[in-house]
């Protein structure tokens, strides 16, 4: 593979940290050096933030990379990886960044390494604006397994903003990915879990009541999980939409000054869109499925109209990998994504 330097304009598309992380992850995977300019150029606090530095540091360690611009506020990063070094790693990101984002950055490369890896990551597991750990464990990992990859997640403790302190161990066993086709409309089974840490249990039951009414859930489709109060306060409402072996997870987080019912209604609305469209892949899984298809060299799936996030992902993927990505509208609520 050519080792030409890939030049990425960080202000492009969604223009946030996602471009940075995806570019780093793909550079690490392909061994192609990358330069990212205009990092988060349009944002209020432009340049790299602490959470991006955490991801960059993890990628640097695993890739034994040479790096320029690894500083807070830097709007330019040059990343030149040397290898993909599998093994045991431990990363502590505090509450500054999501622990799951660090895993996502390095996962593609470790899936194609020559030996398994074990990553212990400490930090926030349930942060807004990042994939929650339940999404990775119950939606992403099973899908990856179906395609031939192996990611095991052992959640020791959940960590909420601002305290952080969550910890999970990710065991990654490399394997060649096979393309998969998920293009048929599906009927979902809905279930929900409300996690609560250091807050009143009634918050969880009020959230579940909203979902029960919205989706006619039975008691065995709902669970309240009470976590160690010392690691609170925190509340996650996790709704699982499962159909023919593929699961999408929709998540809501309890917030100060926001009623439990409101949190649940937002989640219900998002879940309802997927149920009504009968798509196997929702908005969150679409980004990841796009990546997995690109790694497998092909595949297609039916999903909701693509977000700016997904379109940005597609553009960055095409820069690094020899793939064509076709986003095609099927009808008002459904699009078909094809990777070849």
């Amino acid at each position, binding site marked *: 593979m050519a080792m030409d330097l890939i030049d990425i304009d960080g202000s492009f598309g969604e223009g946030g940290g996602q471009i940075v992380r995806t570019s780093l992850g793909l550079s690490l995977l392909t061994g192609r050096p990358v330069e990212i300019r205009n990092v988060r150029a349009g944002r209020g606090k432009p340049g790299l*933030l602490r959470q991006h530095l955490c991801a960059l540091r993890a990628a640097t360690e695993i890739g034994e990379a040479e790096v320029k611009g690894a500083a807070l506020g830097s709007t330019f990063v040059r990343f030149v990886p040397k290898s993909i070094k599998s093994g045991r790693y431990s990363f*502590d990101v505090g509450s*500054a960044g999501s622990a799951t984002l660090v895993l996502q950055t390095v996962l593609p490369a470790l899936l194609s390494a020559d030996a398994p890896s074990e990553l212990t990551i400490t930090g926030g597991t349930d942060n807004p604006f990042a994939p929650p750990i339940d999404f990775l464990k119950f939606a992403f990992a099973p899908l990856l397994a179906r395609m031939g990859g192996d990611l095991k997640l052992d959640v020791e403790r959940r960590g909420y903003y601002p*305290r952080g302190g969550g910890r999970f161990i990710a065991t990654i066993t490399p394997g060649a990915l096979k393309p998969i086709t998920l293009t048929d409309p599906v009927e979902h089974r809905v279930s929900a879990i409300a996690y609560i840490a250091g807050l009143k249990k009634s918050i969880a039951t009020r959230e579940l009541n909203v979902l029960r009414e919205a989706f006619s859930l039975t008691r065995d489709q709902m669970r309240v999980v009470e976590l160690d109060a010392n690691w609170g*306060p925190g509340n996650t409402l996790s709704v699982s939409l499962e159909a023919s072996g593929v699961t999408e997870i929709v998540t809501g987080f309890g917030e*100060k*000054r926001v009623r439990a019912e409101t949190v649940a209604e937002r989640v219900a609305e998002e879940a309802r869109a997927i149920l009504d469209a009968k798509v196997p892949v929702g908005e969150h899984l679409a980004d990841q499925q796009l990546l997995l298809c690109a790694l497998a060299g092909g595949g297609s799936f039916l999903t909701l109209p693509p977000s700016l996030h997904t379109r940005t992902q597609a553009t960055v993927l095409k820069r690094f990998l020899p793939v064509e990505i076709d986003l095609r509208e099927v009808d008002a609520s459904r699009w078909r994504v094809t990777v070849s």
Partner: protein
Amino acid sequence: MNKPITLIGLLGTTLDGAKGKKRWERWRPTVSLFQHEDLLIDRLELLHEERFESLGEIVEDDVLAVSPDTKVKRHHVSFGDAWDFESVYATLHDFARGYVFRDDREYLVHITTGTHVAQICSFILTESRHFPARLIQSSPPRPRSAGGPGSFEIIDLDLSRYDRIAQRFRQETDEHLSFLKAGIETQNDAFNKLMEQIEHVATASVDPMLLMGPTGAGKSQLARRIFQLKKQRQKVSGDLVEVNCATLRGDHAMSALFGHTKGAFTGAQKERPGLLRAANKGLLFLDEIGELGLDEQAMLLRAIEQKVFLPVGADREVESDFQLIAGTNRDLRAAVTKGEFREDLLARIDLWSFTLPGLRDRREDIPPNLAFELDRCGARMNTNVTFNAEARKRFLDFAMSESASWRGNFRDFGAAITRMATLAPGGRIDVATVDDEIARLQESWGGAASSGGDDHEALHEVLGDAADALDLFDRVQLAEVIRVCRASKTLSAAGRALFAESRKKRKTANDADRLRKYLGKWSLTFDQVTAR
């Protein structure tokens, strides 16, 4: 590459003080600074009283939880009263002095936590660069219930927009020092250091002070300023009493100093309190203390130590509480050896002894003193006295040269300025006035010095302005060579005179050649030197 940042801050016992699970729902200034996505603090130096140990531990743990790469070091400090300016300042000052600040790090001083007094002290110590740091201020989220780390602002006092604040602080510290120096911008390091010491002692001590130095060095002036400084700082409530002991001779001395009762001796028609009692709760300046008689010295010692003494003719001791400043131009130790001065009195008064340099030892202070004296004359004469540029240069060249001995120091200097100011046509001192004054000064300092002026002239005649650039070493030598040449008919004759001693020891000598080579060093010939 950014330098790693160290944060120095006080534990906020109120704002940082949340305990229990709910603490994560509260905004805590110290912890909040570690939660910002765009601020990465490498190290925290957290200062707190020992009794807040458990709170300090919580804050340390929570900082580590949100920012695992940060190293936290806690320091126990003891403010005593956290609202007492002096003790807080001293404590923070000690910390700053003892802390090793490194060039490869950046420092931030957190001013949001601690009492207002602590905040002010942190500010002052940062402004004075005891903390080579920028200030950081943290603010809660708006509205507070919105959650999150809030905001922060970094204030760099080195930036010019903060100059005015900085100036205000600097001015205050400088004022006292400047006061002792009568506002004269003196340049001499040793003198400035001396003034700093005197300032400290004058403010802090009520023990006697001894001002040594040649006559006219400014001892009385300084004593007056010390008094005013003490008065300003409310260290004395009484008056300044000044007396030159040289004027207190004989029987008269005792009663002048210690007073007498009515009828104590012939002519003592009324009671006299004496100078010591006049200085009660004030300051007594005894100039030329070496001139005091031995009896008076004994009485004075008792008055300093016991604060009581016996007036002439009295049978009961009286009290007076004064601070003594003694002045002397004599070597009191030598006077002790000769039995003219009491050793115990010297030991008592030279606890704080300061030697004022003579004017010739601080020539760089002549220009600022010239400006000061001119102002003083102008004020006294009700007119503005100035030099013209050439005259000013002529006078300063002379005044700062080695040929000006300034035997009478500031007394001579002040007198010279006063004479020139008085004689100056229309208040403007010209070259003629300066030349006359230089001649007058040289005459008063006697023969040896007067040749200095001639030397200067002779060198100027042969070298022009280059003469000003000569070192004293060369100037003296060359001037004498010129003098001998001019007194000799030929180069050889001059050579013989100049090298007479070596001639005696050697058989042959080419004195003329040696002289020619010496003159050649200055690109001069015998003819040039002797042509007038």
